[in-house]
C-alpha cells in the first residue's frame, strides 16, 4: 500500500471528529521547528466549510470494538491501514515545514488493547518531539481504558488531550457503543483536569458528542455539556451532527445530517461559556428543543421582552452581552467608550458593532431606532426571521420537519 493510499484511508476515517482547533498553546520553539499560536491558525478550509488546522488522522482504523455508529467498527468490511510512527512523523514534518498545517491531531482505532494502542501513539509523538524537535501543536485522543501512567506520559508530550463522550446519556451509549462506558471517559477527564499545568496539556482538554443518533433532547445535551464544563474544566465540547454510515436497527435512518441543530447547540454552548447564561434560561422541560428559526439568544430575548429595550449608556456588562447581536468584544467596547462620551446609534456603527439584530433591543441616549410603536414581539420576531435569506429558511423548514419525525 502506498503512503498516499494509507493517508486516504486514515484521514477519511478521522474526518468525523469535529475538533480541529489549534488554539490555547503558546509553546515556544526550543532549538527546533515550530511553535504554538495562542489564538490558533486556520490553514485551509475544506469544501464542507470546516477549518483545516491540523493533520487529522487515525494511526489505524483497525478496531477491536464494534460501536454501532462508527465507520471503523469491527464488523464493517472496509479497507484497513496502519501508519508506522515514522510515517506519521515524517508526513507531519513535511506538511508543517510547507505551512500546510499547524500541527497534528492523532487519534486511533483500538489495536489489541487500549494500552498497546496508546503506547504506539506515544512512540509516534515522542519521535516528533524528540527526534524531529517539533514544537508545533499536537492534539491526541486518549484511548478509554488505557492505564493512567500512559495518559500521564502522553499528556506531557501534547498540547491538548481529549476523550470523546460520544453520546449524551448512558442509555444512548449502552445502545450504540456497548463496548464503551462513560465512567471510563469520566475517569480520564478527572485525571487530566487534576494534572493540567504548563507542561501537561497546556491547551487543556475537550470532548465530542454525536447529535441526532439517539433520541436525547437539546436540553439533555446541553445539561450534559454544562455539567462537563463545571466538573472537568473542559475547554470545549464539540457537537457532531450524526451522519449515517452504518445500517443498524438501533440507528436512525436519516439522509441529511442535523446541521442546523448542531449549529444551535454551538450557539447555546457559547452562551453558557461567555455570556453568563444558564441552561435553564435557554430551555425547559416543557420546551426541550431549540427554535430552528431563531438563534437561542434572540429566542431568549423575545421571551423576556419586558427586560428590554436596554439603554446602551447604562446597562451593565452582563446586561449588554445578553442583547442579541452584542458579544463580549462589543460589550467591552461599549463599557469603556461610554465613560468618555454618550453613545449614539452612529457611534455604535463606527465602533464596528453590528446593529442588524441589536437595534430592536436597545436605546441609545433614550432613543429607539424607529418609532417606539415598533417595539412589539410580533414585529421584532418577523424581522429577525426575515433577515435570514429565503433559501436558508427553506432549508431550515426541511430540517425542522425532519426533527419532528425523529
Amino acid at each position, binding site marked *: 500500500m502506498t503512503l498516499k493510499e494509507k493517508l486516504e484511508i486514515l484521514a477519511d476515517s478521522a474526518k468525523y471528529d469535529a475538533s480541529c482547533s489549534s488554539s490555547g498553546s503558546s509553546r515556544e520553539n526550543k532549538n527546533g521547528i515550530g511553535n504554538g499560536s495562542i489564538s490558533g491558525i486556520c490553514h485551509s478550509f475544506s469544501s*464542507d466549510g470546516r477549518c483545516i488546522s491540523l493533520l487529522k488522522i487515525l494511526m489505524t482504523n483497525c478496531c477491536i470494538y464494534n460501536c454501532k455508529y462508527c465507520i471503523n467498527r469491527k464488523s464493517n468490511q472496509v479497507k484497513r491501514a496502519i501508519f508506522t510512527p515514522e510515517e506519521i512523523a515524517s508526513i507531519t514534518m513535511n506538511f508543517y515545514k510547507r*505551512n500546510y498545517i499547524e500541527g497534528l491531531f492523532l487519534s486511533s482505532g483500538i489495536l489489541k488493547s487500549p494500552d498497546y494502542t496508546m503506547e504506539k501513539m506515544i512512540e509516534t509523538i515522542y519521535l516528533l518531539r524528540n527526534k524531529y524537535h517539533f514544537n508545533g501543536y499536537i492534539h491526541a485522543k486518549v484511548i478509554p481504558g488505557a492505564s493512567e501512567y500512559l495518559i500521564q506520559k502522553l499528556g506531557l508530550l501534547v498540547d491538548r488531550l481529549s476523550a470523546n463522550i460520544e453520546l449524551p446519556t448512558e442509555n444512548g451509549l449502552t445502545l450504540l457503543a456497548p463496548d464503551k462506558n462513560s465512567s471510563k471517559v469520566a475517569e480520564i477527564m478527572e485525571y487530566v483536569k487534576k494534572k493540567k499545568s504548563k507542561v501537561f496539556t497546556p491547551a487543556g482538554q475537550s470532548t465530542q458528542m454525536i447529535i441526532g443518533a439517539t433520541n436525547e433532547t437539546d436540553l439533555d445535551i446541553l445539561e450534559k455539556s454544562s455539567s462537563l464544563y463545571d466538573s472537568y474544566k473542559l475547554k470545549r465540547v464539540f457537537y457532531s451532527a450524526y451522519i449515517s454510515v452504518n445500517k443498524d436497527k438501533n440507528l436512525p435512518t436519516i439522509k441529511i445530517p442535523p446541521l442546523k441543530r448542531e449549529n444551535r447547540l454551538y450557539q447555546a454552548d457559547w452562551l453558557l461559556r461567555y455570556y453568563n447564561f444558564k441552561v435553564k434560561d435557554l430551555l425547559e422541560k416543557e420546551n426541550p428543543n431549540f427554535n430552528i428559526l431563531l438563534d437561542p439568544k434572540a429566542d431568549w430575548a423575545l421571551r423576556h421582552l419586558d427586560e428590554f429595550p436596554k439603554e446602551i449608556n447604562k446597562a451593565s456588562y452582563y446586561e449588554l452581552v445578553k442583547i442579541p447581536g452584542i458579544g463580549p468584544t462589543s460589550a467591552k467596547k461599549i463599557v469603556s467608550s461610554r465613560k468618555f462620551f454618550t453613545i449614539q446609534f452612529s*457611534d455604535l456603527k463606527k465602533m464596528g458593532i453590528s446593529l442588524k439584530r441589536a437595534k430592536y433591543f436597545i436605546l441609545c441616549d433614550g432613543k429607539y431606532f424607529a418609532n417606539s410603536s415598533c417595539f412589539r414581539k410580533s414585529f421584532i420576531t418577523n424581522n429577525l426571521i426575515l433577515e435570514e435569506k429565503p433559501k436558508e429558511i427553506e432549508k431550515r423548514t426541511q430540517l425542522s420537519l425532519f426533527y419532528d419525525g425523529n
Partner: protein
Amino acid sequence: MMETNFTYLYDGTWENLIELIFWLIKEKRKPLEIIEEEKYEPTLFNMPIKPIRNGNTKDMEKRMPRESLRIAYYVFLSNKKNKELIIYYFLLNSLKYQHQIIYMRNLKCVNEALNIQKRVSREAHKWKGFLRFKETKNHFLYAEFNADNNILGILAKHFQKRLPKEYWLIKDQTRDILCIYDQKNLHFLESKDLTINLKIEKEEIETEELWKTFFQTIAIKERLNRKCQQNFMPKKYWQNILEMEDTYEKSDYR
C-alpha cells in the same frame, strides 16, 4: 507665523514619517497633506516642504503610548490613501488622551486608524495560515503571496520564530518585494535585485499530491458547503494556495 496648509514630503520610510510627524506636532504645524516624495506630483499652487531629517524624536516618543505607535505602524503598512494624515491626527490625539485613545471611537481619526489596523492584522493573520512553501532540492523553502497591505515584514517575523533552522524566501508579488532568511537574519530586497531559479523535484510534487489528497479526503460529502468555504477562504487567495490552484485555474475569476 503659524504655518498651516502646507504639503509635507517624506522618504517613504516609517522612521522618516515619524520624524516628520513628531516635528510637526512639536512645531504646532497642521499639514494639508503628507505625501511620499516619490509619489508627489507637483502643482502650480502647492509648494511642498522637503523631508525633515535629524528631527529629535526621543522625548516625543516617551510621551506617546506604545500601543498608539503600534497601531500607527499598522496603518502605515496599509494601502489606504492619505494614511499619513490619519496617523498624524491619531498620534496628535494620542498625546492628549494617552491610553484612553483607543476608546475615543467618536473621533474620526481614531475610528479610521483602528479599523485600518484591524484590516491589516486580519490580512496578515490569514496569510500566516494560507502561505504555502515549496521546497527545492537543496532544502530551500519558497513562497509567494498577493496582499492588499504591506504585510511582508509581519509574515517574515512570524516565520523567523517558527522556522528558525530553515532557509526560506517569501515574495510579495503585488509589491515585488521579498524577504530572505538565512537561518539567522532577515534580508528585505526588491524582486528585481535577485534572479531566482528554482527547481522543483519529483519528491516535492509527491508531497504536494499527498497534501491535496488529505485536503480532499478530510471534507465530509454530506456536509458540502462551498459557500461557507469561500467565506473563510475568498477567491482572491486561491492562486497562491496549493490545494486551491486547480479550482482557481478552472474558475472564471482570473
